[in-house]
């Protein structure tokens, strides 16, 4: 692209001022306050428009600064340029009432649309940010903005692209991150669903376990009771046996259970007494009979006493009434209870085991979560892959950038510095004699030269269409030699250069070196 003519119809201090620009170096010389910056701003405004600030910010924005001094409602200009072998004219009105932008192809009169991006296309997708960070350079803002580092990074992914929209790596990575989050959420949901199921089951298990525990206690109690009863029974049996061994005579054997004294015994006793009376001679027989009678009486009384002992007394009955009900529960019922509890316990135990199996089966991963997991992995892989590729591409870009910038700095420093390296954030260092020199360590002039080199290199990388280079008083810190080298480089490599200056040094140097230029005096 080459700018051919500027017509400042009404812009800042200028009124109907026409400036013709040529190929090669255009030296625009003017004293302070002669309007160099106005022209600089005019070009930018023509190419990219001037946005009005809002509210208080509007008081000192570009729009207000360059609002024409007289007749502010008429605030406009035209710019003619050539691009791709054709000539175009941009006409803009900046004032708020008749604001418009027109783009016309001069050859065939075709009206193109600025809104639809025709102008942007002619400028090779250049936007104002890039413009200010590359080709348009003034002493005030030689260093490139932070945003350029990001743009370069993004640009790396579009390296060598031909049209077809612009890829936004960060956007894509953001989207993948979001997608991963969604999937992870799904996985979590699936897990929590499973967890819910598990908790429900575990609760069921715990209920059953409690039942089992309870039943076991119950069983213990019944068994203890039964054992106690059995012990008591045994004791009784033993007691009876003991009793039999000692007190049980032949009589006890013959005597019917219920009877305390067998009638036969009485009969025998009577017979013995009668016999004694009859056989023995008097009076001994009476004596013997009385003694015998007393002896038998004693025996009978003794027998009757044993029987009496077994009859319950009043306090015994009361005592029995207040003893626990359970003790009175028949042993049969206890046995039945035991069987019942054992059975129930078994049922519950089986249920418990079955639930345990079911719980174990829950651990098996189902199809759904596997699917989600695979998708998550795929997204992860995509993100990693993209990062890796973009890293590699950034590497290529950085290499190219460094090569280009190094070549420029070599020429303009006359071979003093031959290598320049940039990092991710576009911080620059120089390499001399295999030594790394930070930019803070070199002179102001060299710093400006480095930035110029970097801007030119980035501009070449980023812009498909070669743009005119606009330098606003950038040589203030350059020595004569470096300035000459720089101007030589610009003349050799750039189609069109607009050099604004308030000094005569540039002109002098070019004259001496025989570099052709087109001079415009403001």
């Amino acid at each position, binding site marked *: 692209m080459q700018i051919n003519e500027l017509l400042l119809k009404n812009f800042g201090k200028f009124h109907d001022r026409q400036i013709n620009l040529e190929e090669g170096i255009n030296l625009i010389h003017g004293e302070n306050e002669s309007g160099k910056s106005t022209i600089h701003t005019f070009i930018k405004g023509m190419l990219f428009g001037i946005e009005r600030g809002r509210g208080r910010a509007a008081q000192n924005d570009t729009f207000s600064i360059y609002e024409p001094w007289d007749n502010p409602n008429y605030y406009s200009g035209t710019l003619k340029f050539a691009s791709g072998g054709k000539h175009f004219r941009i006409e803009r009105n900046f004032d708020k009432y008749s604001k418009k932008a027109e783009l016309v192809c001069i050859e065939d009169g075709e009206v193109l649309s600025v809104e639809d991006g025709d102008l942007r296309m002619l400028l090779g997708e250049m936007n104002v940010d890039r413009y200010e960070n590359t080709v348009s350079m003034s002493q005030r803002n030689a260093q490139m903005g932070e945003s350029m580092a990001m743009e370069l990074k993004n640009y790396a992914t*579009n*390296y060598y692209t031909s049209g*077809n929209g612009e890829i936004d790596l960060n956007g894509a990575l953001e*989207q993948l991150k979001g997608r991963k989050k969604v999937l992870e959420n799904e996985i979590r949901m699936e897990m929590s669903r499973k967890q819910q199921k598990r908790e429900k089951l575990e609760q069921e298990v715990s209920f059953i376990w409690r039942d089992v525990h309870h039943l076991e206690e119950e069983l213990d109690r019944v068994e203890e009771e039964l054992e106690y009863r059995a012990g008591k029974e045994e004791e009784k049996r033993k007691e009876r046996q003991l009793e039999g061994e000692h007190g049980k005579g032949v009589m006890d054997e013959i005597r019917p259970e219920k009877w305390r004294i067998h009638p036969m015994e009485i009969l025998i006793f009577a017979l013995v007494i009668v016999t004694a009376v009859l056989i023995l001679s008097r009076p001994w027989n009476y004596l013997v009979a009385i003694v015998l009678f007393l002896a038998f009486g004693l025996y009978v009384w003794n027998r009757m006493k044993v029987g009496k002992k077994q009859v319950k007394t009043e306090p015994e009955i009361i005592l029995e009434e207040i003893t626990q009900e359970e003790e009175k529960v028949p042993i049969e019922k206890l046995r039945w209870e035991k069987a019942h509890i054992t059975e129930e316990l078994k049922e519950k135990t089986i249920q418990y085991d079955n639930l345990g199996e079911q719980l174990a089966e829950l651990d098996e991963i189902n199809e759904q979560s596997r699917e989600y997991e695979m998708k998550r992995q*795929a997204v992860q892989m995509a993100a990693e*892959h993209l990062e890796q*590729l973009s890293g590699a591409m950034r590497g290529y870009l950085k290499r190219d950038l460094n090569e280009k910038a190094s070549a420029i700095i070599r020429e303009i420093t006359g071979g003093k510095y031959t290598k320049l390296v940039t990092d991710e954030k576009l911080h620059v260092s120089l390499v001399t004699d295999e030594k790394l020199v930070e930019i803070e360590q070199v002179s102001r002039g060299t710093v400006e030269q480095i930035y110029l080199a970097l801007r030119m290199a980035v501009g070449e990388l980023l812009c498909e269409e070669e743009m005119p280079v606009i330098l606003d008083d950038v040589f203030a810190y350059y020595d004569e030699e470096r300035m000459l080298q720089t101007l030589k480089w610009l003349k050799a490599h750039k189609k069109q250069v607009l050099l604004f200056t308030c000094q005569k040094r540039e002109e002098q140097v070019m004259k001496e070196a025989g570099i052709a230029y087109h001079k415009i005096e403001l």
Partner: protein
Amino acid sequence: MHLGAKPDAGNAYSQNREQELWDSFRDIITICNQKKTDLLLIAGDLFHRQPLLRELKEMNSILEMLEHTEVVMIAGNHDYIKKNSYYRTFSWAPHVHMICSQEIDCVELDRIQTAVYGCSYHSREIHDPVYDHAVPERRQKYEILLAHGGDEKHIPIKSNQIITLGYDYVAFGHIHKPQLLVENRMAYAGSLEPTDTGDIGRHGYIEGRITGKGCQIRFVPHALREYRNCEVKVDKFVTGHVLRQKITDMIAEQGMQHMYKITLTGYRDPDIWYELDYMDPYGNVVEITDHTKPAYDFTKLKNENKGNILGQYIESLEGYPADSLEYQALCEGVRALMETRRG
């Protein structure tokens, strides 16, 4: 049968599915009574887990409804006879014979001149090929082997070996899908009802007739519902709404009583993705998997983006099969790059 299992049958049917399995079994009793069947064989896994006493009582009372039919059954790997299993102590109705022994045993049914051989599982797995040498003892006119298993961990079998042993029929259980091993001689009846979402296709029982001339069997579909695998193909014009309609129509056509496992395939509009939870119009979709691919023409995209990251990305991941992780990553990455690009 896997009674006691609670298979996933979709939102609409899962609740009653457990009961349905019992209902389906009860129907078999009715069929036996109608057809005056002589013998009902249950080849293991009658219950999904260890049966509870009440379940056995329930089962016994159902079997008591049989009027002409003898029942022979064994325990399978799911309801294997544990130490404390009720199978050991339960007393069945007189016409119900359970072979509880771990070694091959025999039930002789004089009335129908039949001897049924078989054994029960006493552990979850049996690696021994028990059936391969279980020679019938010629006790009755007709001899049947009632078996369970057939895979590596559950009594591996060699069907051509077993068939030479001389049984009139070998009734196999364990594999849920009905399948014929040897024509008219040996078969898996499959589960009466599908009891797992993996049990695709028809289920029922095997009806057979053994006479002096030999054995003849046929599979009779009986299951109230079946799981069906369905593939729904989409194309660029199928949106979520259209897809739901498609699924609705398909289910209405195939039968609403069934349960569906749907796989979405084909190439969808890259800008669309489907809300899968929304694709269950009747509550009988148990599973839906989205295998659709975005309708990107990767080759064309690659050629158009030679040199930039999209082109390089495609180049680095292309050539993997469609079900691989790499392919999915390719789709995801391309989608992200395409959807976020400017201009």
